[in-house]
């Protein structure tokens, strides 16, 4: 087993619902 050399950076994620909202606004913006 390899040990981690350094701590990884936690990537904050939006929730599924938030992601959907982002997606909708992107779609709305596009012509």
């Amino acid at each position: 087993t390899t040990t981690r050399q350094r701590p990884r950076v936690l990537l904050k994620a939006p929730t599924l619902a938030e992601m959907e909202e982002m997606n909708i606004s992107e779609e709305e913006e596009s012509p």
Partner: protein
Amino acid sequence: RPVNIPRKEKDFQGMLEYKKDDELKLIKNLILELKPRGVAVNLIPGLPAYILFMCVRHADYLNDDQKVRSLLTSTINGIKKVLKKRSDDFEAVSFWLSNTCRFLHCLKQYSGEEGFMKHNTPRQNEHCLTNFDLAEYRQVLSDLAIQIYQQLVRVLENILQPMIVSGMLEHETIQGVSGVKPTGLRKRTSSIADEGTYTLDSIIRQHNTFYSIMCQHGMDPELMKQVVKQMFYIIGAVTLNNLLLRKDMCSWSKGMQIRYNVSQLEEWLRDKNLMNSGAKETLEPLIQAAQLLQVKKKTDEDAEAICSMCNALTTAQIVKVLNLYTPVNEFEERVSVSFIRTIQMRLRDRNDSPQLLMDAKHIFPVTFPFNPSSLALETIQIPSSLNLGFLTRV
């Protein structure tokens, strides 16, 4: 002219390099426009998930958090989009449920967290993510998988729904038990009526179709068990609910037919090695209702036997079946009012719900047990049919 020098697999690190500008093309070709029935049928199960994960690995290797975030968001939104478009297509939903779970398993297997690395080969351990912890994205993917699972259940429910009453209750496969002699005339009439009606065979055939599609997509065996359990629950609930509403379904011979049908469904489970899925147990209320149609219903001893036998039925359901029970020949008789009172008295301490009908729309909570893969990422090749020539094996 550039010469292609084939590299040995050991030279690859199990990553796929892509340009940021090609992300849209990746999602379009691999998710939005991929046809599970056409191209995907010959792919190794879970290939789209492995490809996406190998792209994530490369973005992680570059330490480019924006690229990782963007790919994960586009992937999730792409899957949602394709499932919105093909919302009632069992194959598409099963395909993306399997791939979403595989992607989730990859994010765990290569997360670098020891709990998920127990079954990894040393080479697989070298392929763990180096820069980013994607635990929050795993949660989002798990939520997405739950949504897709629920969609899959609704799709299979819509397909099965028209078959259930006809196949489980109305259609008679056991000749001569209905009390109506199969005379020539009767036979001719029923054979005409049979055309276009669903039988138990239709239900079994549909089960086989669902099962082979899920196998083809490499769905996790534990997940497949949950789908089958849910499928059996729907069949049991819809059948029982109709029996509870139809006098013509409450006879000794219907009890016999139902028990035969249930035994065939059980046989199917045995054949597919799914007896430990909990599917059979969901049929218990229906099995007991069928038994109730067949047992003697006269003496105090009969009442006692019924009360201890029917522990998966509510008092309301037991009483309803007894009230509806209809003799179809001279050897049977109606259940007396006093017998039904005796049953009610005996069951009054049960305090069970007054509910008559089962909730046929109920969905059991789903889980996605971690299922690491032995596949070596560095050996994965991308078929040209996927139109992903812009990805470079690294």
